[in-house]
């Protein structure tokens, strides 16, 4: 089958650009974010933090803080209103008699103003007994290493996450006979690669919450969380006996990183419980950078083997993950990372890829765009590069031959085996994108620069990754056609549509897309469809916009709900028009007889007066439609200074069907930000080796890509109508930049003619690889 044989539908809205519903609010500054919102009688919370990476708290004296005018509560591990656990499996408490990283919570304060809260924090006197600390996963697992938690002997976290893995823990890919395959292989590579600087996704809006205690263990939260549902789930698990309702606003960037915000959320709940007043906690930028969740640290020690065609035949090794001082369902990320590795190397039948998770005295690591996939890929692709170099293969052909095809099998995060029902055209996408990037002209071979001009050498690299989480987690939606008679004056049928769906907007445009696909089902203007405010109480269940799941899961739930409502409307109209349903059609909230359009009835006259026509839809989790994202990068390296500039980028995908053209373009661009591309170039997060304190504590210290460093981007998008839901689309944002880090290292290695194996390739790393430092 050729791509041109795919029938392309001709939609009224889908595939075109529709301005975001909240566009006008955003450009006028009226869009509401958490810290723009307040409640009457509110208090402000602040946190006293440990200066030690690992210490026992000998004594806390809060008397001076408590007697400061305007202070309403000071809470430590000694007087917490309830015991709140942390992590999966629970291994510590939010407030402890120990500190486990520099910046760990020691005490929390609520006061009438932020200034008073800050002063109170300074007045808390803490006596510590410093303990030996450990800062890398490799060191943490060594015999005799300092022990963090009783729950994790040897600092090793239990595998498996029951929520994601109902059949039992899944932490390794184990099939075939890797030893035999390695012995028989034409090419074998063995190495240990680290991607363990644990960079910060650094959303512009810091994690922030408001908690109100409503009595009877009922709390209402307002949060800068990208998922009210996930926050509710986790908080209810950790605040004993509680019922939690979560409301969200526009979220100022998250990248998967601002979901549960448990430390701040539980702290606010404790302070609200004690003071009986709402408490707002907004993390400072320094707190976000130094104490909040960062990318997982990863070290892969493995062997990889391939046959003479460059098809990988065996992977054997271990993936060691550093979660910092709290492991909060990282086991789910392990499952997804292992799954994504199998998509990239889908023809490989011999695996023993094990994984281990270690706790260390670093700030907590957790979810960041890529969800385990980027971390593992950044290591495994270096091994693949070694094989390709040994066999002198062109990476483009290797990725095309190894990536998952329709019908290939793989294990996903639940440990179950799935068979791809996805695109037939991923190799075509890779080739077409390569052509637009100019790969065949720029690729000169391994460790060979594309061009050298004086001290400036250019090189190219590429990477491929994909994801099945785009169908993750169950979700439901309600669509109501409501009578709104003003519209009858506008040529419509006197009805508008409300989509009840709990999704929070953190930049992906999915709230608007949900309205858009419903407008397509009803064949009515996009402006007539609106969506309810996000919140866990007032909406049907939705896991939120993570893992690029919004397109398929929310898309499916809302289109099915719309189809259900449409069916009911059609059946009512059939009675009124005295025609069978299959002779009817619908446009602009008027139902008419297809062959006799003048015979029609507005939907507003179908239901009983003032009542709605209501439809229900849902999506049930499955993992059989992997996405594919191919990226290309050209860099220019200064051979004297080791400085790297990105010259151009290209990305390609088969998206199935574009829902919104500009939204998709932005999702492709998004892979450059949020600790993706630049984890290979300059996002270097170093600890002071003597104290374990992160050196970058402000946006002046933390390196980020500016407007004048943005390289040209070429995107290639195929729409092969993949059978996912009514509009046959896939999601892509989660992985749009997940392979960029490994691609960048490939490009830099080719530019300088030497292997760069260290992330990020800062000037010092590049010069070291060249033997100049």
């Amino acid at each position, binding site marked *: 089958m050729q*791509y*041109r044989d795919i*029938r*392309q*539908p*001709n939609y009224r809205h889908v595939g075109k*650009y529709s*301005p975001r519903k*909240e566009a006008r609010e*955003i*450009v*006028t*500054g009226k*869009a*509401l*974010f958490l*810290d723009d919102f307040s409640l009457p009688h509110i208090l402000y919370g602040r946190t006293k933090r440990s200066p030690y990476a690992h210490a026992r708290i000998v004594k806390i004296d809060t008397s001076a803080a408590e007697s400061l005018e305007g202070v309403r509560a000071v809470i430590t591990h000694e007087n917490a209103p309830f015991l709140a656990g942390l992590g999966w499996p629970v291994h510590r408490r939010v407030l402890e008699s120990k500190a486990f990283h520099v910046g760990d919570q020691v005490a929390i304060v609520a006061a009438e103003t932020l200034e008073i809260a800050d002063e109170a924090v300074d007045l808390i006197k803490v006596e510590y007994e410093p303990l030996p600390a450990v800062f890398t996963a490799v060191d943490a697992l060594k015999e005799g290493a300092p022990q963090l938690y009783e729950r994790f002997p040897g600092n090793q976290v239990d595998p498996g996450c029951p929520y994601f893995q109902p059949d039992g823990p899944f932490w390794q890919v184990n099939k075939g006979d890797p030893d035999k395959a390695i012995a028989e292989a034409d090419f074998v590579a063995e190495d240990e690669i680290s991607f363990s600087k644990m960079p910060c996704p*650094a959303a*512009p*809006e*810091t994690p922030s919450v408001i908690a109100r205690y409503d009595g009877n263990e009922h709390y209402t939260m307002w949060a800068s969380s990208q998922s009210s549902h996930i926050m509710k789930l986790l908080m209810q698990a950790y605040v004993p006996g509680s019922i939690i309702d979560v409301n969200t606003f*526009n979220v*100022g*960037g*998250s990248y998967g990183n601002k979901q549960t915000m448990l430390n701040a959320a539980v702290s606010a709940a404790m302070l609200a419980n004690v003071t009986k007043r709402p408490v707002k906690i907004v993390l400072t*930028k320094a707190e976000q950078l130094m104490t909040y969740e960062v990318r997982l640290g990863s070290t892969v020690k493995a062997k990889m083997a391939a046959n003479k065609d460059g098809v990988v035949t065996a992977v054997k090794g271990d993936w060691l993950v550093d979660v910092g001082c709290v492991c909060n369902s990282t086991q789910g990320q392990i499952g997804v990372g292992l799954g994504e590795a199998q998509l990239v190397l889908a023809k490989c039948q011999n695996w023993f890829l094990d994984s281990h998770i270690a706790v260390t005295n670093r700030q907590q690591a957790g979810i960041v765009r890529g969800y385990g996939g980027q971390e593992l890929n950044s290591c495994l692709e270096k091994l693949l590069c070694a094989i390709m170099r040994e066999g002198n293969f062109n990476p483009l052909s290797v990725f095309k031959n190894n990536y998952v095809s329709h019908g290939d099998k793989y294990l996903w995060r*639940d440990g*179950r*085996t*799935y*068979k791809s*029902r996805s695109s037939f055209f991923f190799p075509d996408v890779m080739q077409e994108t390569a052509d637009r990037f100019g790969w065949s002209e720029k690729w000169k071979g391994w460790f060979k620069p594309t061009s050298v001009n004086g001290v400036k050498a250019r090189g190219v690299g590429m990477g491929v990754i994909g994801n099945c989480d785009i169908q993750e987690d169950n979700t439901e939606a309600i669509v109501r056609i409501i009578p709104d008679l003003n519209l009858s004056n506008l040529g419509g049928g006197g009805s508008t549509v409300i989509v009840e769906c709990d999704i929070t907007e*953190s*930049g992906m445009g999915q709230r608007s897309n949900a309205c858009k696909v419903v407008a397509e089902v009803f064949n009515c203007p996009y402006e007539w469809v609106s969506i309810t405010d996000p919140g866990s109480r007032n909406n049907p269940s939705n896991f939120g916009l993570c893992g690029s799941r919004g397109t398929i899961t929310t898309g499916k739930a809302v289109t099915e709900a719309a189809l259900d409502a449409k069916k009911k409307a059609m059946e009512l109209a059939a009675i009124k028009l005295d025609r069978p349903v299959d002779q009817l059609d619908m446009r602009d909230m008027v139902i008419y007889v297809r062959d006799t359009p003048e015979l029609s009835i507005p939907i507003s006259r179908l239901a009983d007066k003032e009542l709605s026509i209501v439809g229900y839809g849902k999506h*049930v989790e*499955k993992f059989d439609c992997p996405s594919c994202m191919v990226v290309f990068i050209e860099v220019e390296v200064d051979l004297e200074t080791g400085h790297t500039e990105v010259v151009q980028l290209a990305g390609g995908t088969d998206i199935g069907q574009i829902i919104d053209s*500009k*939204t998709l373009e*932005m999702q492709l*661009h*998004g*892979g450059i*930000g*949020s600790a993706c591309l630049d984890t290979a170039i300059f996002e270097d997060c170093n600890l002071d080796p003597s104290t374990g304190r992160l050196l970058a504590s*402000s*946006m002046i210290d933390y390196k*980020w890509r*500016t*407007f*004048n460093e*943005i390289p*040209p*981007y*070429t*995107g*290639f*998008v195929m*729409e092969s109508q993949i059978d996912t*839901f*009514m509009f046959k689309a896939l999601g892509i944002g989660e992985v749009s930049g997940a392979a960029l880090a490994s691609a960048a290292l490939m490009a830099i290695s080719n530019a300088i003619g030497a292997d760069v194996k260290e992330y990020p390739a800062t000037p010092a790393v590049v010069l070291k690889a060249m033997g100049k430092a």
Partner: protein
Amino acid sequence: MDTASTVCPETSKLVTKDSVTLTINGRRFKFSVGDGTGDISPSETLTETLRKRLQMTGSKESCGAGACGCCAVIVNGDAIAACMTLTVELDGNNITTIEGLEDARKGLDPIQQAFIDEYAFQCGYCTPGIIMVAKALFMKKAHPAPDEIKEALAGNYCRCISHYTVLRALNKLAGNNNAELSTIVKASDLVQEPIPIAQELYPSPYASGHVCKHSLD
């Protein structure tokens, strides 16, 4: 009572103020300086005055260090970081915030409209700051060159990557052709004689099924 002391640039003498007058979006505000309830303290930043005192929450406080541009407002024609500016230092100054750009009669500022037309934001948190910095640039120069636009925005942090569409919107306003940094090629556009079809009335059983039967275990 605390008062604000600043050095007069002309006489180099210490000047003590007990009030501050600002004109914000055309409206005059007079605040007393001190430590009484409702007074502006000498350490209050413009961000605090705008966001907490006046409920003008359009500009954001993100980094608190003058590094990210989320708090940018225009003071006497220049974009400044409001989080690094003391309100008492702005006595007598004219301030424009994102809330002041839209004209009640004429509608949105052309930059605001261009940001909607080109979808020049993702999460939108950094957008008011970007728009204010761009506005200050366009006030000085109606047709800035592409590099001048990038340079002006070099202090604006955006982690979602709205850079391409922001530059597209501003280059269009500035009349810069051939400044496009992002190109998206659709495979469908390359197909000769495409076959448009109406949407399928009934989705496939896979697309509408609710039971996950695809696990092969």
